[in-house]
């Protein structure tokens, strides 16, 4: 009894409040996005909010139930849960229902279940379990195992194919970094991203050598530029750096230069082999192609809906632009448009800030854990929410490419709702048990 009391007392109230707030706002928002005066009942199954209401109730129940399950029990079940989800991901490829070209759904009556949405939870558990058992992440073996844990579900999800959900697994790179993966890898990833963007931009232009008829594409110009920089760096190093350190830097410069050149060329090849719609999406995002009727259409409509909201918004149920279906996928991937249109700058900033608070709270919770497992798990949760926020909202306001992932608690869909609830409920329960580890 006493333990139960202390757990109830130690439940992290800010996190729960933020969760409930977001859930309520999401509910209202779905209602508005799919509103039909003829089916105004919140539980009317004819509209999306009817199903969503059922999912919300289910999530609350599941979340409450999870609070009753001891953290140790979950921790012990981490691998079986992971295995079970992997099995589901395999099964869905075989017997799944195809929706929008992706075999991602199990049909259960009128409802569909998307196992990929639970893979984040399962991978978080498995990764936390594995990393908490390690002293350090410096051994190649442990890095490989961690990578496999992350990439197994990613591979299966890619086969559906559901690139968006697979990409969210990038969140685990942040976790690995937190747990000791070299920062250089993170840095290299960021530099690579910059190189990709640069080479894409340069690819558009053709340079000609003065006084000759010879022309070459921008990416070669980029390589040339890098070579010049490397050479300048070489001169600087020769002049200012102590002799015994020079060698390492020379090697770094040479490898970096060759690597970059190879990388730029392979990006070039890769882009050329991409399906044309993905090429266009990337080009539209970089401002290289203006194509509001084509691939940029979704984003353009989304920005219009959000932009037309103004400072205070058009009011609940009065968002005409979203109401009349101008934004594609407005109740799922582009749900943020309804927020922007109906609640304006004030409402949409509030949502962004609430998500920010949710993530920061998770990091804070992670910080105060004595259990390594809980600490890593909390960090996983924070990273996953961070990626969802960054990609989903970023895409709606035209700062990220169009990648189909849901906005937690807002987008229509029961699987993601239950998945995110599970992530948080387990975290809250394990956090509430943190004092027990003192004993």
């Amino acid at each position, binding site marked *: 009894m006493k333990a139960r009391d202390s757990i109830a007392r130690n439940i992290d109230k800010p996190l729960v409040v933020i969760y409930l707030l977001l859930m309520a706002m999401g509910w209202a928002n779905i209602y508005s996005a799919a509103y039909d005066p003829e089916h105004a009942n919140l539980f009317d199954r004819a509209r999306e909010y009817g199903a969503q209401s059922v999912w919300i109730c289910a999530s609350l129940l599941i979340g409450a139930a999870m609070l009753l399950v001891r953290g140790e029990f979950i921790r012990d079940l981490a691998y079986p849960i992971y295995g079970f989800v992997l099995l589901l991901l395999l099964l869905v490829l075989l017997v799944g229902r195809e929706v929008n070209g992706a075999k991602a759904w199990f049909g259960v009556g009128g409802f569909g279940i998307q196992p990929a949405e639970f893979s984040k939870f399962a991978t978080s558990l498995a990764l936390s379990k594995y990393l908490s058992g390690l002293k350090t992440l410096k051994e190649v073996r442990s890095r490989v195992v961690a990578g496999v844990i992350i990439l197994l579900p990613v591979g299966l999800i890619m086969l559906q194919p559901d690139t968006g959900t697979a990409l969210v697994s990038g969140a685990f790179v942040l976790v690995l970094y937190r747990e000791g993966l070299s920062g250089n890898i993170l840095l290299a990833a960021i530099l690579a991203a910059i190189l990709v963007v640069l080479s894409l931009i340069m690819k558009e232009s053709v340079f000609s050598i003065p006084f000759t008829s010879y022309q070459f594409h921008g990416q070669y110009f980029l390589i040339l530029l890098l070579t010049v920089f490397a050479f300048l760096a070489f001169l600087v190093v020769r002049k200012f750096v102590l002799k015994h350190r020079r060698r390492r830097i020379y090697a770094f410069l040479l490898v970096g230069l060759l690597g970059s050149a190879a990388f730029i060329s392979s990006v070039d090849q890769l882009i050329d082999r991409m399906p044309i719609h993905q090429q266009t999406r990337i080009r539209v995002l970089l401002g290289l192609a203006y194509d509001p009727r084509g691939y940029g259409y979704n984003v353009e409509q989304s920005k219009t809906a959000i932009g037309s909201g*103004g400072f205070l918004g058009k009011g609940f149920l009065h968002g005409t632009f979203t109401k009349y279906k101008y934004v594609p996928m407005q109740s799922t991937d582009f749900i943020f448009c309804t927020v922007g249109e109906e609640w304006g700058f004030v409402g949409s900033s509030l949502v962004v800030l609430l998500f920010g608070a949710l993530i920061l709270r998770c990091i804070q919770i992670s910080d105060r854990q004595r259990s390594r497992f809980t600490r890593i798990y909390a960090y996983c949760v924070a990273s996953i929410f961070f990626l969802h926020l960054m990609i989903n909202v970023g895409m709606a306001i035209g700062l990220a490419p169009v990648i189909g992932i849901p906005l937690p608690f807002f987008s229509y869909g029961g699987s993601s709702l239950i998945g995110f609830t599970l992530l948080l409920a387990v975290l809250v329960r394990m956090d509430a048990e943190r004092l027990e580890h003192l004993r």
Partner: protein
Amino acid sequence: MNLDERKYVLIGGVAFICIVFILRLFWLQVVDTSWTARAADISERKITVFPSRGLIIDRHGELLVANTPVYDIMVVPREVKNLDTLALSQLLNVPMDQVRERLRKAREYSVWKPSEFEKQITADQYAAISVHLYKYAGFYAQSRTLRTYPPHVGAHMLGYLSEVSARKVEEDPYYKPGDMIGVGGLESFYERDLRGKRGVKYVVVDVHNNIQGSYKNGQYDTLAFAGKNLYTSIDLKVQELGERLMQHKKGSIVALDPRTGEILALVSSPGYDPELLVGRVRNTNYRLLQQDPLRPLFDRALQAQYPPGSIFKLAQAAIALQEGVINLNTGFACNKALVGCHNHPSAANVEQAVQFSCNPYFYNVFKRIVEQNEVPNRFEDAALGLAKWKTAMESFGLGHPLPLDLPAVKGGSIPGVNFYNRIYGEKAWSFSTIYSLSIGQGEVLVAPLQMANLAAIFANRGYYYDPHLVRAIGSPDSLNTHVQRHHTMVDDKWFPPLVEGMRRVVNEAGGTARAARIPGITVCGKTGTAQNPHGKDHAVFVAFAPMEDPKIAIAVYVENSGFGGTWAAPIASLCMEQYLTDTITRPDVMQRMLEADLIATEGNYTKFVSKRRKQ
């Protein structure tokens, strides 16, 4: 290595993303208002509710102008899918390259908003098209109305509708580009009454361009009010008869009711079928009409100004009697040395002078009016006399436009002292300079409407009412009360002898207009022949009937037809008979008038007529 600090990378990332997102949201939602405009542009539609234009109706309730529905085919480019351009081209009878060109233009204008693809398809054509139209996603029909003219008469007085000019749009905020506006005639004069008031409805449409409801519960909507009907005084039968009688002749007929000033018929010939200036064919036809050397667009009834010829003698005689320079029994010998005349006995009194239309007689009459010997100087005396004469003439509705309810009414010209001073210099002209005025020649100009009004003055024995076309606006009872009665400066007592002269013109042997007689009705009239430097003389005839209780006054002007009694008098007679008895008892006269072609040799009118297109 303290790994704990690595959490700040994520914390920094979260803070960075939140700040960037909020700044971006601030930019999109607060700073950059173009998104709001774009959303409104895409999802809100302003629907103009066009009221039906007022009808124009004759004095017996017959329609002169009505409305007929036509259909515009509209296209919303973004909804066009899998378009079979060849089939569409055949369905709408639009060439393939035009189909592509119009689609391109529509797309250029707006992909969301409807553009006109094909204009003004008639109801018959639309019936055949409508059953297939559903196959062409993005295309739909929008109905509106065009003017139609069931009797096909009165083109000049009715006017027509045309797209409003860019300048008018600037001047008058009511009009929007593409609106129709009355041009010329009643359509223009009564534009405000006829057009009604346009309504505006703001609606919100969904992505499929279906109307989803009114914008903000219709708080910005305005109601449309239908245009008011015009109840005119035109007698359709007289108008129709007049237009038929004037075919193949240049000239005009103006008939009015002297008791009220109501215009009964207003004919200008050559005219044109008003349907020629409706809808898609308007521009082509307008150009053809404009190029026609016979100038069918020119409204001769109101805008032509001619020397009145001998009909002017009626006013001359009345003024002379009033001035006391002659009396009823004044006689003058027909001295052809003064001014040319035809062969007739000398007039022993005014009645005979009118009957014979004796030129020397009126030479003397006008001489006495001008030279009243009030001052010794011959020139000064002439100026005094002419000034009096001009004022008196103007009281007959001459020399200034009559206030008819049509645009562009010409007023003719009664030359005065200033006029001659300008030409000859002060005290440099006298009666001998201006004597041709005595017989309605020279510098005097009168429009056919004024001639008919002159007839009305004699019918009324001394006064006239403002001529007007519209008796009531909106409902048949709201009578036009702005009509004023104008007395001439000549006493009523001087009119009966002159009217007797007019009776003799028509009814006595030696009268010049015996062709104007109507069985059983006493017609009074006066012929005129105006010299024309460009060809045969113009003929004019003014008349009223019946003599005892005049119900119609009329002026018929036939250009280049020679003597007034030959063509103008019978035409006037037939029109009056039609109005007074609703029958034509002289089919032979009628036939002769219809067959007469006074311009066949002169112009290539028929060639142009055959080129005009009707839709």
